């Protein structure tokens, strides 16, 4: 098997507080292949953004990274700031959630694109400007020769996100991390930006890590899906397998949260996963989802499950699929098996 573009092995991120250390990401492993997209899905605060920031080496100083982050076999965790800044923007790029604030308000967009190009490539200012115009063209901004001298506040949100993408792609990165790139945009623009990213991915053959909580985006973009809950991977597999056979109760719950327009009963209420994510200072000993899980048994509350291989494309971390599971002991079957199979 060929070496994956990015290999994250047992990533742990913790933040040192004044009194104690808080673990935000607890042992996360995933791969990103060249030209493929991995979507990381999860609720707010589950550690998605922290994961992406640790790949970029952009965690705040109080953050502690443990584990391995291998970019083409090269470990990034031990790199100094200086070494990382050569990789950032060049081999790995990132786009952010808020296009309204991710651009420097007092610099023209052209200067901001050119700055990255000059930084990583041996070009003159003039060439960089030319390249910047080409990049704006590439991301579909009309009359780029004019827009290059525009300030960010003169562009709409969608345009700004295109500019962000132009900056991120200006040095042909092999890996693009997109942290909820479409959350702040309205739906039509969302689709345009996603299309743009897909097309550029094909053209430039880059790997993408897409962080999102929007399952519609996942179904559109993902090759592989990693479902995170409270700093841990609960399910990991290829898109089809996850969407057709969600196995972890949390993933099943997420799928059920998508409102069904075709439902016969118009008054059907939105499905809600009861409770909320446990606080990082008070993680339960057992499965972290146990308190909200409709199937939780004794073992779920006492021992934490490992990721188990279900088939070649699919792993899940749930006691339900192990030999230790005792049928019939379920507390309150809020999600019935029938309902799940219907929605899949």
């Amino acid at each position, binding site marked *: 098997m060929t070496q994956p573009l990015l290999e994250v092995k047992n990533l742990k991120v913790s933040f040192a507080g004044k009194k104690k250390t808080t673990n935000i990401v607890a042992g996360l492993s995933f791969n990103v292949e060249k030209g493929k997209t991995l979507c990381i899905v999860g609720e707010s605060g589950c550690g998605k953004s922290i994961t992406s920031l640790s790949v970029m080496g952009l965690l705040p100083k109080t953050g502690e990274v443990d584990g391995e982050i291998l970019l083409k076999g090269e470990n990034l965790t031990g790199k100094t700031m200086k070494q990382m800044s*050569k990789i950032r923007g060049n081999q790995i790029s990132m786009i952010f959630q808020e296009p309204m604030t991710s651009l*420097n308000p007092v610099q023209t967009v052209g200067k901001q694109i050119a700055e990255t190009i000059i930084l990583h490539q041996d070009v003159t200012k003039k060439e960089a400007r030319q390249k910047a115009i080409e990049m704006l063209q590439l991301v579909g901004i009309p009359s780029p020769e004019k827009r290059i*001298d525009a300030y960010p506040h003169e562009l709409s949100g969608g345009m700004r996100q295109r500019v962000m993408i132009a900056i991120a792609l200006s040095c042909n990165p092999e890996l693009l991390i997109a942290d909820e790139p479409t959350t702040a945009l309205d739906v039509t623009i969302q689709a345009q930006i996603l299309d743009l990213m897909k097309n550029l991915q094909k053209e430039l053959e880059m790997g993408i890590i897409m962080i999102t909580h929007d399952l519609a985006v996942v179904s559109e973009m993902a090759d592989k899906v990693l479902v995170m809950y409270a700093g841990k991977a609960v399910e990991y597999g290829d898109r089809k397998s996850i969407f057709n056979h969600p196995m972890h109760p949390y993933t099943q719950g997420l799928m059920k949260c998508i409102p069904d327009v075709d439902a016969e009963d118009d008054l059907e209420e939105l499905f809600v996963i009861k409770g909320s994510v446990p606080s990082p200072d008070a993680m339960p000993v057992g499965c972290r989802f146990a308190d909200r899980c409709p199937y939780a048994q004794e073992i779920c509350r006492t021992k934490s499950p490992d990721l188990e291989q279900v088939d070649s494309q699919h792993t899940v971390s749930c006691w339900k699929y192990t030999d230790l599971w005792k049928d019939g002991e379920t507390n309150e079957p809020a999600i019935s098996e029938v309902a799940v199979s219907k929605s899949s």
Partner: protein
Amino acid sequence: MEAQLNQKIAVVESPKKRRMKEMASRFFQNKMAVAGGIFTFLLIIIAIFAPVVAPYNPSEQDYAKFLQSPNAENLLGTDELGRDIFTRIIYGARVSIEAGIISVGIALLIGIPIGLFSGYYRGVLDEYVVMRFTDALLSFPPLVLALSLAAVLGAGLQNAMIAIGIIFTPNFIRLVRGEVLSQREREYVTAAKASGISDFKIIFRHILPNCMPPILVQATLSIAAAIISEASLSYLGLGTQPPTPSWGAMLSMGQGYLGDAPWISLFPGLFIFLTVLSINLFGDGLRDALDPKMK
């Protein structure tokens, strides 16, 4: 259709120009600010061309006509040594403007880098050294501090400017640091880091320009305050030394003759007042023009 659209876009002027125009029009709507700007501008011109504009030599004494009240020959009268007050005010403008600009320049030169690094890197040095040091400096009444500094450094215009520069520095450190603290949390800074841009470049190319409007306004207003400080030091004998004409020193010289020849003190005082007022009006107008939301 496409061609038509492109033509339309081509007619629109570049955004940069438009922004400057908007700012200029906002500034010119403010009549007081324009008046202040004009007065300041004229004063600078007159100061530069003092030898051409002034009717006499500023240190030329004429005992035949000392303590003369304003007349056709000596527009603003003469002082106790028969020197033309109008001439001395023109030359005094040189001293005042120079003192204002250079001392604020010193404060900016020291204050901006310290504020930038202190705010960007935070840490122990920022919290316990820089901030407590500025607190200590700010807790002195500024004039007392300037007086003691000038006394330590020795009397003279150059030392007065250094002293005034130092007492204004903490204001700029605090202002810049505060601005940096709010800017460094902005996403564009993280985004710049994500493109691999170094801290140094982020500080000077991205954060500093975003902090500029308040710095510019504070600098303008500080020039006015520095002019008063220089005049005060000169008045107390620690600034400009005779025979170099300085508004503050003239004010103090005229003190003994206030009953007989009030013009000796009146006119320098009036010019200090007008100059400081004009610069302040100009600075306020500049603030409103740069950031209409700040009002």
